[in-house]
């Protein structure tokens, strides 16, 4: 009970305080002479956001880059040692390979399934469309941790002799093979692919919704014209619809790509990075929280930022294009 009251009081105080902050800033400005206060009024609106971004995003980001050249306890400079250590460590190269596989597999499959579902739901009438879309979209509301519990159960393995409860192993047995401890099997990175399936499951809904809206915007005449010329359903899709929604498909691809680069929770909850499933964001977590190695952890995350850098360029270009269209 006291927890609830404490929670409620914190919420009210937190919100009241921030409203008071804006009121105070504007009040202070209004004390200034009219001419100055008109010119400087942007400060009252922008300062809290700017301070927050500066203190929690920009300065710490630079600090991380600096720390990546320091030792475990950030007491002494070590030059490029952390980076040299990382790139001469076979395990870290395996982690990079994992990130590469995630990036290669997940965005492409997510976009492909999303496009397929968007196309299919477009053909079945409004009621069925709504029901199917809701069900595919639903995982969007689920946390990575809850998704991990759902899928761990799906992949679950019980030692031989006890009754099977996992669906995957039951199916495997049903077609005549032995049950396998799936999440521990890293041959050909099998377990990493099983983790990727979970993220695809979570993200397809998003890709479907956005691509579906683009498909609905395709002018009806262009499709009818192609149909009159005798094009098959596939030809209409590949030759008429797809080129017109390609821009949207690519932007969804980039969004999922950025998400996948940072994938972390799924790996933590399902394998704890064991059995060669670790990725960069998880390695950062492990270096810092399990080993308290600040320098190396900072180096890992700096590598991640550098790899995301080119995507940042893509993002800025997309925004500039949108601005130009205004």
């Amino acid at each position: 009970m006291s927890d609830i009251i404490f929670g409620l009081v914190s919420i009210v105080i937190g919100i009241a305080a921030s409203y008071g902050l804006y009121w105070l800033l504007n009040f202070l400005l209004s004390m200034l002479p009219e001419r100055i206060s008109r010119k400087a009024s942007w400060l009252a609106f922008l300062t809290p956001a700017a301070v927050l971004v500066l203190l929690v995003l920009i300065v710490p980001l630079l600090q991380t880059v600096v720390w990546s050249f320091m030792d475990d306890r950030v007491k002494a400079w070590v030059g490029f040692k952390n980076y040299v250590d990382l790139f001469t460590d076979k395990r870290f190269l395996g982690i990079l390979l994992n990130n590469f596989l995630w990036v290669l597999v997940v965005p492409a499959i997510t976009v492909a399934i999303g496009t397929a579902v968007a196309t299919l739901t477009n053909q079945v009438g409004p009621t069925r469309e709504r029901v199917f879309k809701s069900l595919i979209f639903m995982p969007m509301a689920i946390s990575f941790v809850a998704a991990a519990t759902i899928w761990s159960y799906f992949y679950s393995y019980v030692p031989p002799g006890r009754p099977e409860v996992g669906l995957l192993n039951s199916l495997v047995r049903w077609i005549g093979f032995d049950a396998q401890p799936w999440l521990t099997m890293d041959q050909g990175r099998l377990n990493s692919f099983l983790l990727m399936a979970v993220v695809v499951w979570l993200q397809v809904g998003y890709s479907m919704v956005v691509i579906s809206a683009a498909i609905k915007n395709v002018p009806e005449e262009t499709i009818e014209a192609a149909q009159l010329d005798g094009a098959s359903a596939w030809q209409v899709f590949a030759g008429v619809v797809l080129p017109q929604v390609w821009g949207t498909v690519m932007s969804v691809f980039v969004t999922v790509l950025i998400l996948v680069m940072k994938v972390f929770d799924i790996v933590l909850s399902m394998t704890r990075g064991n059995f060669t499933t670790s990725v960069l964001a998880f390695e950062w977590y492990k270096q810092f929280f399990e080993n308290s190695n600040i320098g190396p952890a900072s180096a890992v995350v700096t590598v991640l930022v550098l790899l995301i850098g080119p995507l940042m360029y893509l993002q800025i270009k997309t925004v500039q294009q949108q601005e130009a269209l205004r």
Partner: protein
Amino acid sequence: MIKVMHLLRRMNLGSTIMLIILVMLWSTPTVGLLITSLRPRSVAEISPWWEALLNPIGTVWTLDAYRNSLEGGMLSSLINTIAVTVPATILPLMIAANAAYAFTFLKFKGKELFFSTLVALMVIPVQSSLIPVLRGMVWAQRTFDIQLTGTYVSAWLVHSAFAMPLAIYTLRNFMMTLPNSLIEAAKVDGASYYQIFWRLVLPMSAPAIASFAIFQFLWVWNDYLIAFIFVGEQKSVMTYQLLRLLGQYGEGWQDVAAGSFISLIVPLIVFFSLQRFIVRGLLAGSVKG
């Protein structure tokens, strides 16, 4: 013509069947865990969940796992999650709406540069700044005796900051569609920028604010990392509690399963009741990475 109609109908049926298969594939893992959460442990350990689905009347159903899991900490975690999530949704929106207002309607030097910086920050992973922020909070505690780590406040601040780039960007895009003439008219009438913001721009931006609020709510509710680092065990949120339960599934899947569904109730209610707005928000480009 009849041939065409026939062809269309057939295509329709084919699409429906494919979609049904896909939807079954998509829902099966969730249904499996849901059924398991409703069965007594002794039964669920020897008979797989689909047996209960095939014979729903002959099966024993129970809410024991839900009671266990609530009493085992899920209930207080629920309260902690709400206390983290509600302000971490409202605060960033308020701060971002103010900033977006400045970016849209006020003139100042360096506007372009500030804005490009924000856009660039949208893709930066949260991990890149968490360690210095955590150390900074510990330092503030030693130097000024302000307790931040282990409290809700630290999570509000960090969530607010990370929401900033996307929130400002989305809200500014919306505010740019508001009629400038209205704001000019209010200025002529002698309204201050502060009054214009609270009385005119903020109410008119309600649709964009609502759709971003839904995303921010789901994002914070489902977050593990920031809650783990900044709130931690003291006021453990549901994702934290759930991960702890998952580590003990050797003792039976029931509690994990029940815990998962308890953590899902609120997001699913939000999702199904506000789905229209979620879709609208997604299409406006407000996607959280």
